[in-house]
């Protein structure tokens, strides 16, 4: 008797299976056909209940008879399960960035999310890594090795890309550019966080939390210690799996609230 949470994000799909404790974890690229990826991921599996979250939830949920929940609630539930004293979740994902404030009892109290564009998201860093001919996994360390920084004025992914190209043309150092890009995104995320008024403990999740430079800058800008889970990209799927289990137990009476874990 198992439950599962499926987080269909813009860049990756994460699946967390759950019984009494988390049992399975898989993460794959979303690719151009998320439904097909999910079919492959779920082939031969049967769950007592499946909850979908993330961008693709509306696409995927009806196909697999899954319930759906927004990733804001899913991340809140997942982070709270990992850290029961968590009051703030910062989630830097592939195409957006969200900051959620939780009440004492773990309910979503307030959230902020970037508007419309990829400014301040994982996508921004991905595009910039490509311009600098780096792997996304190397970008953060590369920036941390910088001796100085340059100021990137544009937060628009498209404009920032041309700004970086012109900095390169002027001979700016690649590490300094990388650090400047991280500064830009951290400033943006910190502004969003200040809008909700972060309280400790602050959990930093989503794929962006894997970036050590972003971790450090964000922590400094907010003057708080950030807790990064072992698998920060799977927190939403974990939350969805917990909701699947909680819903079954409470007869689905309270779809929005955290599960009785």
């Amino acid at each position, binding site marked *: 008797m198992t439950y599962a949470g499926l987080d269909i994000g813009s860049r990756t799909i994460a699946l967390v299976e759950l019984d009494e404790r988390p049992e399975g974890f898989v993460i794959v690229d979303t690719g151009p056909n998320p439904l097909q990826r999910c079919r492959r991921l779920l082939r031969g599996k049967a769950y007592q209940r499946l909850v979908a979250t993330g*961008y693709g939830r*509306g696409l995927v949920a009806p196909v697999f008879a899954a319930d*759906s*929940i*927004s*990733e*804001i*609630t899913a991340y809140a539930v997942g982070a709270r399960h990992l850290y029961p004293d968590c009051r703030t979740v910062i989630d830097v994902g592939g195409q*957006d960035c969200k900051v959620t404030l939780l009440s004492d009892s773990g*309910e*979503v*109290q307030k*959230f902020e*999310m970037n*508007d*419309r564009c990829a400014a301040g998201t994982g996508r921004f860093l991905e595009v910039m890594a490509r311009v600098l001919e780096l792997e996304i996994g190397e970008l953060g360390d590369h920036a941390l090795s910088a001796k100085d920084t340059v100021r990137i004025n544009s937060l628009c992914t498209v404009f920032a890309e041309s700004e970086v190209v012109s900095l390169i043309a002027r001979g700016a150092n690649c590490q300094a550019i990388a650090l400047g890009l991280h500064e830009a995104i951290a400033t943006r995320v910190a502004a969003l966080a200040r809008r909700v008024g972060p309280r400790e403990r602050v959990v930093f999740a989503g794929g962006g939390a894997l970036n050590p430079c972003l971790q450090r800058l964000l922590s400094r800008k907010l003057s708080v210690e950030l807790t990064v889970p072992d698998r920060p990209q799977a927190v939403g799927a974990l939350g969805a799996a917990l909701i699947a289990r909680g819903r079954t137990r409470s007869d689905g009476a*309270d*779809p*929005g*609230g955290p599960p009785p874990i």
Partner: protein
Amino acid sequence: MTDYREMWAELGLDLEKHDALLQALSSMYGSIILSQDNRPKAMDYFDFVIGEIHGLRVQELMDHRSKGGKVVGLYCVFVPEDLIMAAGAIPVGLCAGTQFSVPDAEEVLPRNTCALIKSSFGFKLGRTCPYLQASDFVVGETTCDGKKKMYEILGEYHPTYVMEVPQKKTPLGRELFLDELRGLKERLEQETGVTITAERLAEATSLVDGKRRALQRLHNARKARPAPISGLDALLVTQIAFYDDVARFTEKVNALCDELEGRIVGGEGPFPADAPRVLLSGCPMAIPNWKLHRVIEDSGAVVVGEESCVGTRYFGNLTGKNDGTLEGQLRAIADRQLETHCACFTPNDERLEDILELASGWAADGVVHYALQFCHTYANEAVKVERTLARENIPLLRIETDYSDEDVGQLKTRVDAFLEMIRR
């Protein structure tokens, strides 16, 4: 269906582009409006009006013109419909609500301009709005800097008259507005050759007040739980108010309200009684801007009111009683307009009170504030709305968006999370 192509050609429409627009509109209407469950029967009339959106009503305007009457286009609730009608002219709210015409506008206007302004202007440039083509002139206003400057450019393509709307609700502001009304009256008399008399204006005001009363009745019906009508349908009715024949529209809205009041007695509605109730507040939503209502209602909540120019700011106040002289009536119109709490005014704290009153009177579980991107007045005023609602512990979701569909996924995530939050 009647073939209106000859009329459209005569109006100088770009027929090919216009066909594409109508096709897009018809498919949107099918998938967003007609696909809703359990709609009131009396919505048939409004479906018919949309089916004939660039047909029958435009034909009526053309018939009016062939008899020597004038048609006056407008974009804003501050332009007094009754004054236009008193000159024997037909006021008509112009097309301004779709991404379709935005690319045309961007050939001329800066991209960083709100979608409403770009859409309005794009309809002229692309020659796709028969109402604009059929209007003898447009009456613009100065409710924001973007529109103010756009009207100057529009004036190079279409006869345009701009009336000034004051920025403060002071006695001086009122005098200014009154003077502007006198100026508009003169211009209307010049254009139509009709002298606006006290009797003519009183009759027109009473007709328009009748329309407002019918819309108030519809608005009040939405207080019921379950709401007897979806937010999408109610919004649609208000949108149609801007261009349909006043007397006919009023009668049809009242017929709709008869049905809704019956539904209320039977506890009937398109959403269950426990569906979260959302009040919408902010920028106007012109046809076919159903984007946010659709996202909200697709997620299982019901929109119970619009604190908006296509909402309470349009019909919330009546012009009402006055001394019956022409001057007294103009004064009453000016008074009414200064009680229209648009973000173009400073200060505008009365709007905050309106939102609180609507949220409590309509039992809203939360408020969604809707600002068009680059609409500086509403986007900035949202800060005060947020602070006011926070003091009263009313959940608020602030949305900034435009007419395009590119952010619908993000909107859905925010709306879903908001509803999950208020459903508890």
